[in-house]
C-alpha cells in the first residue's frame, strides 16, 4: 500500500490506530477512580505526545540514519514557534499558513546552521550545533527583544495582543488558532458510564500531520537516499572512495530533520499561541536526544514511543505528591506508611527526573536498542515459549531467503 511493503504498511496502520484511538487508549481508568490520575487522555497532553513524536521522528532521520548527533535541534523548534506566532500576529489565526511558515523558516535556518556545522563530524559537530542553539536562545531571550526592534518579546514570550494587525481576521472567526473556523481548542467530550473521553480538534490535526510525516519518514528510510544516509553512518571512508561526497547527503538529512522540528514548533504554537525562548534551550535539545535513544535509535517507531514515554513521566509522575502517596498506602500501619512514603518521595512529584533517569540508565544498559529492542525481545521470548524447546534460537538471526 502507498509504495510500502507489508511490514511497513502494518507499522503505519498500527501508528494510525494508536494515534486516532489515543483518547480511548490513554483513558483506561474511570474518571472518578483513584487511578484516574494515570489517565493521559486529556487534550493538552495528547497534543504534546504527538508533537514531540514528530520532533523525535525528524531528529531520528538525522541521528538514527547518519549518526550525526545534533545537540541544537531545539533551536528549530523555537524558530518554528516564533514564525507561527508572527503569522498569527500579522495575518490571521488560521494555522495552515502559520505551520507552513514555521517549516520554511526552520528549513532555511537549518540549511545555514547545517552548512557550517557539517564541516566537522563527531563531537565537534555536536558542539557546533549546541553553540548555534545557545546563540539562538540568547538572541531570542534578550538581543532580539528591545524597544526598537522587538522580534521575540524576550522573557515574556511572543504572544498575540489585541492591537496586533491580524489583517485577515474576521469577526466570525474564533479568537484562537483555528483551522478555517474550527477552533483548535474545541473539544467533544464523550461520557460512557464512568468513563469520559475527550476528542479535541487540535489533537486530531496534530495526529493527522504526524501520520503524514511518519509515512514520509518510512519512505525516506526505505529509499536509496536513506540507504546512502545509513552508508554515511556505517563508513564514510568507503563512501568517499566510492565517488560519493557525503556532505550533500548529511546536509539534506539535517535540513529535513530541521523542518520536522520546525513543524513541531509550529504545531506547538498552533495549539497554544505562545512562543518563549526557553523552548530553544539546551535542555530541550537534550530531551529529544533522550527520546530517540530511549525509544530506539534508527528505528521507525522508537522515537515516537520514546517521546510518549518521557512526556507521560513528565506530566503524570510529576503530579503524584505526598498526599497522593499517603492515600495509596493508608492501609499500612502508621509508622510503615510514613516510612514507605518517605522512601518513595524522592521519585515522584518534583523528583520525577530521578525516576526517569534511573529508567533511562536501565534501558541504555540492558536494552541498547531502546524500547523497540525490549519489544522485540519480548516477542521472541513469547515465540520461543510457544514453539517449545526443540527449536531454540541459534543466537544469531539470519533472514531466510
Amino acid at each position, binding site marked *: 500500500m502507498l509504495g510500502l511493503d507489508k511490514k511497513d504498511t502494518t507499522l503505519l496502520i498500527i501508528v494510525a490506530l494508536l494515534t486516532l484511538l489515543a483518547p480511548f487508549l490513554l483513558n483506561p481508568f474511570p474518571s472518578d477512580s483513584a487511578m484516574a490520575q494515570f489517565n493521559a487522555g486529556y487534550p493538552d497532553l495528547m497534543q504534546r505526545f504527538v508533537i514531540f513524536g514528530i520532533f523525535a521522528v525528524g531528529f531520528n532521520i538525522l541521528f538514527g540514519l547518519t549518526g550525526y548527533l545534533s545537540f541544537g535541534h531545539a533551536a528549530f523548534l523555537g524558530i518554528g514557534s516564533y514564525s507561527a506566532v508572527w503569522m498569527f500576529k500579522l495575518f490571521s489565526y488560521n494555522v495552515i499558513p502559520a505551520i507552513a511558515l514555521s517549516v520554511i523558516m526552520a528549513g532555511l535556518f537549518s540549511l545555514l546552521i547545517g552548512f557550517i556545522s557539517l564541516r566537522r563530524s563527531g563531537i565537534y559537530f555536536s558542539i557546533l550545533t549546541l553553540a548555534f542553539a545557545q546563540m539562538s536562545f540568547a538572541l531570542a531571550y534578550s538581543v532580539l527583544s528591545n524597544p526598537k526592534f522587538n522580534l521575540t518579546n524576550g522573557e515574556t514570550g511572543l504572544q498575540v495582543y489585541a492591537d496586533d494587525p491580524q489583517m485577515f481576521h474576521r469577526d466570525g472567526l474564533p479568537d484562537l488558532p483555528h483551522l478555517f473556523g474550527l477552533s483548535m481548542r474545541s473539544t467533544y467530550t464523550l461520557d460512557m458510564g464512568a468513563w469520559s473521553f475527550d476528542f479535541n480538534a487540535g489533537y486530531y490535526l496534530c495526529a493527522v500531520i504526524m501520520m503524514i510525516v511518519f509515512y514520509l519518514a518510512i519512505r525516506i528510510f526505505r529509499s536509496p537516499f536513506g*540507504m546512502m544516509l545509513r552508508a554515511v553512518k556505517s563508513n564514510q571512508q568507503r*563512501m568517499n572512495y566510492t565517488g560519493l561526497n557525503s556532505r550533500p547527503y548529511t546536509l539534506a538529512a539535517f535540513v529535513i530533520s530541521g523542518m520536522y522540528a520546525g513543524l513541531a514548533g509550529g504545531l506547538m504554537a498552533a495549539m497554544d499561541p505562545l512562543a518563549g525562548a526557553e523552548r530553544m534551550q539546551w535542555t530541550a535539545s537534550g530531551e529529544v536526544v533522550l527520546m530517540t535513544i530511549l525509544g530506539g535509535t534508527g528505528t521507525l517507531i522508537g522515537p515516537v514511543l520514546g517521546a510518549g514515554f518521557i512526556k507521560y513521566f513528565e506530566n503524570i509522575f510529576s503530579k503524584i505528591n505526598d498526599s497522593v502517596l499517603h492515600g495509596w498506602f493508608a492501609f499500612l500501619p502508621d509508622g510503615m506508611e510514613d516510612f514507605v512514603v518517605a522512601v518513595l518521595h524522592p521519585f515522584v512529584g518534583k523528583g520525577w527526573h530521578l525516576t526517569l533517569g534511573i529508567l533511562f540508565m536501565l534501558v541504555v544498559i540492558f536494552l541498547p536498542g531502546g524500547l523497540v529492542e525490549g519489544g522485540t525481545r519480548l516477542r521472541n521470548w513469547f515465540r520461543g515459549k510457544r514453539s517449545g524447546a526443540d527449536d531454540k534460537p541459534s543466537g544469531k538471526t539470519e533472514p531466510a531467503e
Partner: protein
Amino acid sequence: MGILEVKDVGKRFGGLQALSNVNLSVKENSVHAIIGPNGAGKSTLLNCLVGKLIPDSGSVMFDGQSVLGRAPFEINQMGISRVFQTPEIFGDLTVMENMLIPIFAMRDGAFRMHAYETVANEREVIEQAEQMLEEMNMADKRHMHSAALSRGDKRRLEIGMCLSQKPRLLLLDEPTAGMARADTNNTIDLLKQISEERDITIAIIEHDMHVVFSLANRITVLAQGTPLVEDDPQNIRGNPKVREAYLGESA
C-alpha cells in the same frame, strides 16, 4: 606513457622524509606491484595517489590529468578505485546494499552525487548488483549483514564493490594481510581472473612475496622513501640490491 605517471614525488612529515624523488610509471592493463620493507613509504605513496595526502613536490598524472588537489571522491570518479588493507565496507548494511551503493553512485556510466535524483531504471541497478554478487560468488549471502562476513568474504565484497564501478585502475593495499593461507590463495586467484578478464590496470602494495610473484608482471622496489629498482619479476628475484634491502632481510 603509462596510465599512471608519478614524477619526482616527495612527502615530508615533520623531520621524516617519507618519500623523495619517487618516479613510477604504471602501464595500462598490467599488474604492477610495489614492494619494500616496513617504513619504506608504500602506504604514503598510495595515499598520495588517492587524494588522502597531498605530496609536497612532484606530480601525479592519471590518464593525462593531474590528481593533485582533488578530493578522494573526485579521484575515484576519474576511474581509480582503492581496496584497503582492512576491508572497508558498509558493516551495518546488508551485502546487497553494499553492492547497490557503488552502482547507485555510478549509473548510466556517469557519477551522480545524489541518490534521490530520479533513477531511470531502478530494476537495472538491482540487476547489475545481483550480477556482480554472482561473479563474486556471494549471491547466497546477499541478505547477510556484511559485518558478519569472514575476512575473505569481506575482501571479495570490497573488490566487487570497486569493480562494479568499472574503474580503470584498481589500487590494492596489502589485500591479503591477516588472511589465512586458503583465503590468500582465493584472493590471488580472484585478482588473476580480474586482470585477465577485464580491461583494468592493477597496482598492488604487498608484503607477501608469494602473492607478489604469483600476480605481478612489473615490480617496483621502494626503500627508505625512494624507488630502488623497477623491473620484471624474474630480474627482481635475482637482483642483489633488492636482496640486500628487502628479501635478504626477511629471509
